[in-house]
């Protein structure tokens, strides 16, 4: 019981410095706008610059996709991969850059779908969108 109390105290003592890190650290995850782009990560501005050469891929659930998506985007989520991959291949061509997006900054589905597409297609022109659908909507009010 003493050891448990000690362990609990250590866990509690870690909270304040973690909070300070979250709020003030220059590389805090809550300041990702300042963080350099990861490999294969693109911004809305970059993707928009590619124009019609971009094939948008929506990595969110079919419900979210149905509620609204980037015009021309095809749905392809990890959970429905087997059902949706054929439809994706129908519209994909090697010349087009693929940009995968999920809902927002915190989501990671787009990165995972992009990785899987790069493996399955053998193409390096598969990117994921920083900020996801929320960032795209903010840039296209």
């Amino acid at each position, binding site marked *: 019981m*003493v*050891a*448990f*109390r*000690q*362990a*609990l*105290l*250590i*866990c509690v*003592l*870690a*909270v304040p*410095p*973690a*909070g300070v*890190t*979250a709020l003030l*650290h220059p*590389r*805090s*995850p*809550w*300041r*990702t706008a300042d*963080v350099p782009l*990861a490999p294969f990560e693109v911004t809305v501005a970059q993707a928009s610059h590619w124009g019609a050469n971009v094939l948008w891929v929506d990595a969110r659930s079919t419900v979210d996709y149905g509620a609204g998506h980037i015009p021309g985007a095809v749905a392809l989520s990890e959970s429905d991969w087997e059902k949706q991959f054929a439809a994706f291949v129908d519209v994909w061509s090697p010349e087009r850059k693929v940009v995968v997006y999920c809902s927002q900054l*915190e*989501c*990671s*589905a787009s*990165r*995972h779908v992009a990785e899987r597409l790069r493996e399955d297609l053998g193409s390096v022109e598969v990117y994921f969108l920083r900020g996801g659908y929320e960032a795209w909507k903010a840039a296209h009010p």
Partner: protein
Amino acid sequence: MIVIPFLRIASRVVLSAVFLWAGWAKIYDPAAFVREVENYRLIGGLLARLTAVYLPWLEVLMGLALWMPNLRRGAAWLALWLMLAFTVALGLAWWRGLDISCGCFGSAAPGASNLPLLMVRDLLLAAAAALLTARERHPAERRTR
């Protein structure tokens, strides 16, 4: 038996050094550590961010607490459970065929890691922590036996 006290000191030194190094390396760049956490595909989003800012400090405090008489048994128990949790996370990543960097020391070692080897390392560290969870007998207590 002189071996056990020696093993306890060696375990304390190694565990403390590993946790201080691992924690400090991650504190240096929490944003990069979020990606390492997400690579395991166990947690994401807000939980991954909270882990990225909390876990490094927990490791640093554990590294220090292992030397504090009033906290060291608790720190040893925490270290044991944390090393077992890391082993499970590595095992799941290996089982799912993920080709990832372990992120054990932040972004200090980019590139794919040898996950089975890291699991063995973490189990050895867990064993070291388990050794420290046992109550240490006072020297006077030992002499009476």
